């Protein structure tokens, strides 16, 4: 009923290939963007920004990067957190070497460093596939964390061995450091995530997206339709690591404010793999749904007893939390193994033909 597509005819290829060939999708997106840009900032507290909104956005972005590589190009990777670290450390070094540089430029430049490192560690993908490649990327994970610890130049020879973000501003507006307002940081992150997401939706439905998906589905056939496998795989590693690097820099500069090398260790890599798988591999929207489930839901659940007036010890709540989120993950994967994005796609299809079953 809400998703009736009748009467929406396509007379040109432009309109047929438009981002939202169905008007209702467009409407839905406008509503979501309005909530993100206007409604949330009206009500959100500092806690909401710091514990819910900003983390969800940053994890979504990191997962989007991983999804380009694993979901679209079919190359398994367990080194996501390491590449995030490269982005963060690169941004840190750029802003210390060029203190006058605009943080936005520094951020987008630091992505190139993680892209280069990603391509270097992506080289094994030309010879090995699947789980073996995952293990090769795991090596990059260990190596990079080790490097962040041992190479003192990276953290400016700090006694603590951690990187700390100093106060920076854009045209007088403080965006990083302890004095920055969470709302400003939220808008900053939201803006960058929106831009990158828009760009990636376009890339994945264009030539690159098809090339990557062809390599994922059958690499020999891809080669025989004229796709250069080396270029396709390495471009996927580059684009993926670029986005992941930006996500890492955002995480340190606009959320945590400081980072130690072990932040970029394996647990975070796994967390991002989970987000991508539960959200749906080979989908852009899935990353956001997955991040909401894995990052935001535990926080919301933790707040529940207080809201309901129950007194449960925080340790108990922690256990309950793990149990609830864990069983939800299992349930969603049983209901739809292809992830939340596919789940939504099925619901949408049903809505379009509703009230008829076929």
């Amino acid at each position, binding site marked *: 009923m809400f998703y009736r597509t009748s009467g929406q005819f396509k007379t040109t290829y432009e309109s047929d*290939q438009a981002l939202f060939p169905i008007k209702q999708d467009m409407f839905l997106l406008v509503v979501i963007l309005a909530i993100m840009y206007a409604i949330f900032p009206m009500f959100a507290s500092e806690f909401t920004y710091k514990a819910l909104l900003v983390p969800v956005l940053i994890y979504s972005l990191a997962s989007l990067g991983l999804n380009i590589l694993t979901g679209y190009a079919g190359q398994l990777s367990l080194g996501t957190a390491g590449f995030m670290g490269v982005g963060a450390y690169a941004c840190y070094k750029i802003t210390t070497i060029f203190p006058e540089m605009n943080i936005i430029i520094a951020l987008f430049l630091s992505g190139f460093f993680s892209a280069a490192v990603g391509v270097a560690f992506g080289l094994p993908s030309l010879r090995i596939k699947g789980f073996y490649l995952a293990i090769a990327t795991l090596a990059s994970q260990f190596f990079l964390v080790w490097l962040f610890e041992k190479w003192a130049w990276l953290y400016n020879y700090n006694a603590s061995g951690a990187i700390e973000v100093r106060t920076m501003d854009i045209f007088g507006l403080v965006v990083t450091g302890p004095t920055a307002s969470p709302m400003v940081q939220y808008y900053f992150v939201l803006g960058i995530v929106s831009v990158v997401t828009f760009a990636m939706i*376009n890339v994945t439905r264009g030539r690159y997206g098809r090339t990557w*998906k062809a390599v994922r*589905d059958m690499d020999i056939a891809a*080669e025989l*339709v004229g*796709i250069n496998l080396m270029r396709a795989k390495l471009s996927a590693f580059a684009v993926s690591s670029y986005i992941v690097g930006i996500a890492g820099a955002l995480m340190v500069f606009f959320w945590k404010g400081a980072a130690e090398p072990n932040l970029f260790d394996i647990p975070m890599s796994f967390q991002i793999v989970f987000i991508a798988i539960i959200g749906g591999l080979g989908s852009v929207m899935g990353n956001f749904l997955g991040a909401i489930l894995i990052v935001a839901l535990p926080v919301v659940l933790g707040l529940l007893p207080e809201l309901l007036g129950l007194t449960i010890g925080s340790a108990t709540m922690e256990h309950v939390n793990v149990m609830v989120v864990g069983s939800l993950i299992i349930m969603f994967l049983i209901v739809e193994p292809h992830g939340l994005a596919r789940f939504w796609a099925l619901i949408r299809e049903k809505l379009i033909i509703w009230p008829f079953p076929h």
Partner: protein
Amino acid sequence: MTVMDPTLEEVKRRAEEREVLLDLENVSLSFGGVKAITNISFNIKKGEIRAIIGPNGAGKTSMLNVINGFYQPQEGVITFNGEKRSSMKPHLAVSQGIARTFQNVALFKGMSTLDNIMAGRATRMKRNMFWQMLYWGPAQREEIEHRKKVEEIIDFLEIQHIRRTPVGTLPYGLQKRVELARALAMEPELLLLDEPMAGMNLEEKEDMSRFILDVNDQLGTTIALIEHDMGVVMDLSDRVVVLDYGRKIADGVPEEVQSNQEVIDAYLGLSH
């Protein structure tokens, strides 16, 4: 007016008149001690349908793999379009105008029919990452220009109704047709078909035969075809080359090949 079958001499004369598109001279291919192809020479002429037949394991598919650069022959000279070929990679062969389909369907299963065929034009699309990210201006124009070509092929092969269907869910006969569409999207000069009719029922075979003839006739594509259905081979092809144990045992118009004693022996076996 009755249509007369051309006489044997006429068929031969017609084949003689055509220009050579691909020429193989003394090509040999081996994997370690296994000799897949031994000293084979034949040519494919412009605009003809050339069948490659032979019993299982005769080296037919290896022959196609040599032609499109997937295997490197150890010996022999290959000339395509008057140019001698040195080393070859499949994606280079595509840019020279050689496309192929596979014995087992090799489609990109997670993608729609439209995307599969569009992927066949991947090498022809040039817009860089920057324009791709915007999907606007040159990138969109390029996309639409190729979409038009792809839609022509979709019309040609009558697969409009499955445009948006993921190919993994299609029946086998249609998958084969989508694969042919993807090969045609590369706008090849030479189209290599590896058993296009394997596993099809009679009706699907008739459809496929008609499409092959149409492609040859209307698009002017030269076709090299491997097929086991002798009825189809003899009806469709202009000339036939017969392989057995990696050697060429016969080469000529269908009538000649059919009556060749060596071919009959290869297929029916010899009493010892």
